[in-house]
C-alpha cells in the first residue's frame, strides 16, 4: 500500500473495502468521485447493481444514478447501465471466487464482506421442497457500506445504565437503515471498555454475530472496534450462540442482532433467567409494530426487557426517537438526538 492509498484508507476505509469488490472501471469512477466530492461520498450508504439497469448510489437522504461518464446524475437515461459482465465480476469478487463456499450465505440471500459490509443478492432462487437451496443466475446486488460511528451511542447510554451501575435489558427498535447495528456496536464497545463519565468499569460482553455485521470479523477476528472485554461468536446462529456463550464465556451482557424467530426468544429467556443482561434489536417502526410479531410479543410479555429504544432517520440514521421503560412503556425524557 503506497502513501496516497494509505491516506485514502484513513479517510474512508469502509468505502475502499467495498469498492474492491467492483469491476475495475466502476472502481475508478467511484474513486474519482471520492476525490472530487469526499464529503458527499462519506455519506454514501448503498451501492445497488441491477443487471441491465442503471447503477444507483444510495446516500443517506437520496438515491442518485451513476453517470456513464463518471459523476452523478438524476436522469436514468444518462446513467451507467450495469452489464452482465459487471455482475459476473462482482459475483466473483464478492465471493472470493468461491461460490461453493457460500452455500449457507446464499440460502439467506446475503454475503458479509470483511469489515461487516452486507451484500444482498437477488436472482433466480432454486428451491427444494419449499426451502431455498441456492441462488442461481445472480442478477442484482445491494452493497451496504457499514461505517463504524464511534460515539454513536453517547447520548443513549445514560438511559441504559441504572444508578447502581447495572446494565438494563435493552431492545433497539427501528426499520432497516436506521442505524440499529451501528448503535448496538457502539454500546457493546463502550460497555466492554468501560465508560469513565459514569464511572462504569467495563463488563464482559458476549456477542453472537450471526450476520458478521456487529464486529465485522475476518477469520474470527473482529475488524471493527467492539471494545476490550468482548467475546465474539462469528456467523453463529443466534439461539445456539447465546447458549454457548452462557455456558463457556461467563458474560455479564449478551448482545445479538435482529431477533425474530421463536427459538431466538426461547434462548433469550434462558439468558434472562441466568442473570445475564441482554442487548438486542428488532425490526419495526414502533413498539406497537413489534408487539404484533408473535415471537417478540412473547418476549415483551415476560416484562423483562427494561428499556425499549426506538430509532428513526428524522435527523439522519441513528436518530434516537424515544426511549421507553420496557415495563410501563412510559417514555423517558429524551430529545431527538
Amino acid at each position, binding site marked *: 500500500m503506497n502513501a496516497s492509498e494509505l491516506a485514502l484508507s484513513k479517510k474512508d476505509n469502509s468505502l475502499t473495502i467495498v469498492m*474492491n469488490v*467492483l*469491476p*475495475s472501471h466502476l*472502481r475508478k469512477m467511484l474513486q474519482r468521485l471520492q476525490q472530487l466530492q469526499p464529503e458527499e461520498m462519506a455519506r454514501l450508504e448503498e451501492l445497488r447493481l441491477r443487471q441491465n439497469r442503471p447503477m444507483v448510489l444510495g446516500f443517506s437522504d437520496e438515491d442518485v444514478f451513476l453517470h456513464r461518464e463518471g459523476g452523478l446524475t438524476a436522469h436514468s437515461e444518462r446513467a451507467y447501465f450495469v452489464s452482465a459482465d459487471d455482475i*459476473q*465480476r462482482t*459475483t*466473483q*469478487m464478492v*465471493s*472470493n*471466487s*468461491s*461460490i*461453493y*463456499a457460500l*452455500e449457507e450465505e446464499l440460502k439467506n440471500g446475503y454475503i458479509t464482506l470483511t469489515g461487516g459490509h452486507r451484500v444482498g443478492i437477488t436472482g433466480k432462487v432454486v428451491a427444494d421442497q419449499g426451502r431455498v437451496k*441456492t441462488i442461481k443466475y445472480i442478477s442484482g446486488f445491494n452493497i451496504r457500506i457499514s461505517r463504524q460511528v464511534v460515539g454513536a451511542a453517547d447520548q443513549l447510554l445514560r438511559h441504559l445504565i441504572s444508578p447502581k451501575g447495572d446494565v438494563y435489558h435493552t431492545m433497539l427498535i427501528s426499520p432497516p437503515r436506521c442505524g440499529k447495528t451501528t448503535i448496538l456496536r457502539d454500546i457493546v464497545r463502550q460497555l466492554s471498555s468501560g465508560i469513565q463519565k459514569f464511572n462504569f468499569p467495563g463488563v464482559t460482553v458476549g456477542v453472537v454475530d450471526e450476520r458478521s455485521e456487529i464486529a465485522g470479523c475476518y477469520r474470527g477476528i473482529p475488524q471493527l472496534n467492539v471494545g476490550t472485554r468482548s467475546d465474539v461468536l462469528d456467523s453463529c446462529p443466534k439461539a445456539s450462540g447465546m447458549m454457548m456463550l452462557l455456558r463457556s464465556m461467563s458474560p455479564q451482557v449478551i448482545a445479538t442482532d435482529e431477533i425474530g424467530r421463536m427459538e431466538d426468544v426461547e434462548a433469550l429467556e434462558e439468558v434472562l433467567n441466568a442473570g445475564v443482561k441482554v442487548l438486542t434489536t428488532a425490526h419495526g417502526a414502533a413498539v406497537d409494530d413489534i408487539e404484533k410479531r408473535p415471537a417478540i410479543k412473547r418476549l415483551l410479555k415476560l416484562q423483562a426487557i427494561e428499556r425499549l429504544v426506538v430509532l428513526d432517520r428524522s435527523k439522519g440514521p441513528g436518530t434516537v426517537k424515544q426511549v421507553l421503560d420496557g415495563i410501563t412503556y412510559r417514555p423517558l425524557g429524551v430529545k431527538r438526538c
Partner: protein
Amino acid sequence: MLKIIGALVILCSCGYAGFSVARDYQRRPKDLRYLQSALQMLETEISYGATPLPDALEQVANRCDKSVAQLFLETRNRLLSGDGITAREALDDTLKKFSRNSAIKNSDASVLRALGTSLGISDREDQVKHLQLAREQLRIEAAKAEEEAAKNVKLYNYLGVLGGLTIILIFI
C-alpha cells in the same frame, strides 16, 4: 588436436540436445500425474472443507509436487492482487507462463483452461464434477504421454549421440 576438440564439442552439444528432448518426454507424464493429484487435493479442499479458492490453492501449492506448485501459487496471488480479475483470467495468465517453463503441452494446458472457466462459480457438487472431468482428461493425456515417452526417450537419447557421431564422421 583442434579436430579432436571440435569433434568433442559437436558430440557433447548433439548429445545434450538429444537428452533434453528425451527429458521433456520423460517429464511430461510425471508432471501430468502431479497435476492430477493436485487437482484431487483441490477437490477435497472444495468438497469437504468448502475452503475459499485462494486458500484452497495455497494449501494445494504447499502440499503438491514442486514442479507444479508454482501454477497454483501464482494463480492464488493473482486472485488476491485485488485487480478485479476472475478466477478464469487468473488461471489463464498463469498458464501462459507455466506452460513455457514446464513439460506440459498445449493439449494439457487447454484441459486446465477449460477447468478455469468453471472454477469457483458454482456450487460444490458442480465444482467436483468439473474437477473430476479435468482429472479424467489429464489421465488420458498422461497415458498418451507415457506411450510417447516409452517410444521416444530411448530414441532421442541415442539420436543425439549417434547424430553427433555421424556429423563428426562426415567432417573428418
